[in-house]
């Protein structure tokens, strides 16, 4: 068994190349891919998420850790698929129609993946209909919607309406976030959850998915 603690530490420090090399070594040594994920990569990202929430680290540290986690995941993903490892849940994530900002959305995605949630990232400026299609296609239990602008935040409501129209609203939990979004706005548009930051989003998402099982 490889030194998962070292992988964790390198994720926390944001050492992307070293994380990739360590994951490769672990796979070459015959380690269980799921174990590499849950014992090595995930604890690192979760620690960074927790520290971010508590103002111990800030956006730059989260971004470099996310990049490191991502470099490890790229190598690990084929092995996870081959091993048939089941994720904690499946989420469709995007920035809504008319909005092309993706830093917040990408942070949330990395935090979700850090908790073992499989993410289908539709990117930015996404039509409600594409979200509906993706929920169907991937049998997602969670939809995460981001918006940076006051002019685009109502796109989150459009997605919720489209999910209702498609008869999928009761099958998924909808989480909303972004700079102009508030709890009051989330309530107004009928979202299930609003969280202030990416780390809290991942925490709430994991809890919601585990409760739904």
């Amino acid at each position, binding site marked *: 068994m490889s030194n998962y603690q070292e992988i964790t530490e390198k994720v926390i420090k944001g050492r992307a190349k070293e994380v990739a090399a360590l994951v490769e070594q672990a796979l070459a040594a015959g380690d269980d891919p799921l174990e590499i994920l849950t014992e090595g990569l995930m604890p690192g990202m979760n620690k960074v998420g927790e520290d971010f929430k508590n103002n111990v680290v800030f956006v730059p540290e989260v971004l470099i850790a996310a990049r490191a986690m991502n470099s490890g995941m790229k190598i690990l993903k084929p092995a996870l698929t081959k091993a048939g490892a089941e994720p904690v849940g499946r989420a469709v994530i995007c920035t809504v129609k*008319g909005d092309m900002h993706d830093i917040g959305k990408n942070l949330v995605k990395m935090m979700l993946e850090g908790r073992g949630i499989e993410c289908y990232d539709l990117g930015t400026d996404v039509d409600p209909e594409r979200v509906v299609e993706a929920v169907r296609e991937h049998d997602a239990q969670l939809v995460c919607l981001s918006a940076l602008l006051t002019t685009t935040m109502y796109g989150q409501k459009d997605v919720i309406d489209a999910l209702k129209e498609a008869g999928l609203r009761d099958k998924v939990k909808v989480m909303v976030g972004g700079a102009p979004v508030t709890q009051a706005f989330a309530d107004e548009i009928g979202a299930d959850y609003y969280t202030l930051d990416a780390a809290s989003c991942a925490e709430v998402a994991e809890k919601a998915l585990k409760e739904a099982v």
Partner: protein
Amino acid sequence: MTGRERTYNILHFKKADRMPAVHFGYWPELLEEWVAQGHLRREDVDGWYDGGPKDEALNKILGWDFDWQHMFSGNNGLLPPFETKVVKTFKDGSRAVQNGNGIIERIQPGVTSIPAEYDYLLKDREAFETLFAPKMAVDIEKRVNFDWFRRFNEDVYDKTDVPLGLHLGSVMGSVRDMTSVIGMSYLMYDEDETLFKDVVDTWANMQYEVAKAVLETGAKFDFAHFWEDICFNGGPLLSPALFEELCADHYKKRTDLCREHGIDIVSLDCDGVVEKLLPVWVENGVNVMFPIEVGTWGDQFEKARKKYGEKVLGVGGMDKTVLRLDKAAVDREIEKMRRLTSLGGFIPCPDHRLMPGTKFELVQYYCEEIKKIEC
């Protein structure tokens, strides 16, 4: 009293005849909306900019006294800026455009608010030294129109009765503008340890020299102003300790310079939750927080006042979104402003540029009502 006198008095805890109606400009989409709705003519809005002739004319129509961003400075940007050019066109009609800061932004046709960062040029020391450092050179004769500033008092200052600001530029915000949030983060950790500090220092020193040269012409200003935008709704974009280490001396140097030239009001524009960076600013000579975004930290002005006393002044804090609603919502906001203005050293101003959906007649109503606040 003039707008200049009112502002001076309020920000020095003295009596004024009434509250000035101050604003922070408009998103271009809103001006277009008002033209489409018939409130304004095309010629009223084309060529609008903060403090410009069109802005002053619009102030009269709407009832504002002045735009806080009525400011002047030498050229304290990248000189020359990078060429603005389209580097890619996407299927949906959006384009990747390289801007003057060397950032490549993805822009949708017809949308001007907050573009999405796509890529950036300042990735390593070589890019800094070959592409950016030459554009940050002081080269003062090219940056300051000395003749114009020597005539400034006679030609500009004495011909207006509203407060005029000296724009001091930025310390960290502009560096973020040259690297993007992601690029700034990577640059802090990926390169040699001194690169990020070198970028900040080179930039900040040039901006100091420009401000110094302008002030030495004898041009008069009522206040000075920094722009930062280095926070978001979760707090600072980088650690407060690092921010202090990199920026504190630069703030001190520029605010000391202002005070040496008789300017004791120094405002700073930073959106988002600024609380954790406030000590760095307050302890280094910045005393006016602007625009005090209500959605994120509006209620914190009173907390800051309690903590720092009269060292913290405010311009902003008015929830601009009520101007999309109705008179009752505006009245409620005016009541909130009444409470904040009673603290002294505070002038209400919309907490950012007025956005699409803002009702023309509610802005006029707000301007009438805010002027009724005693101070």
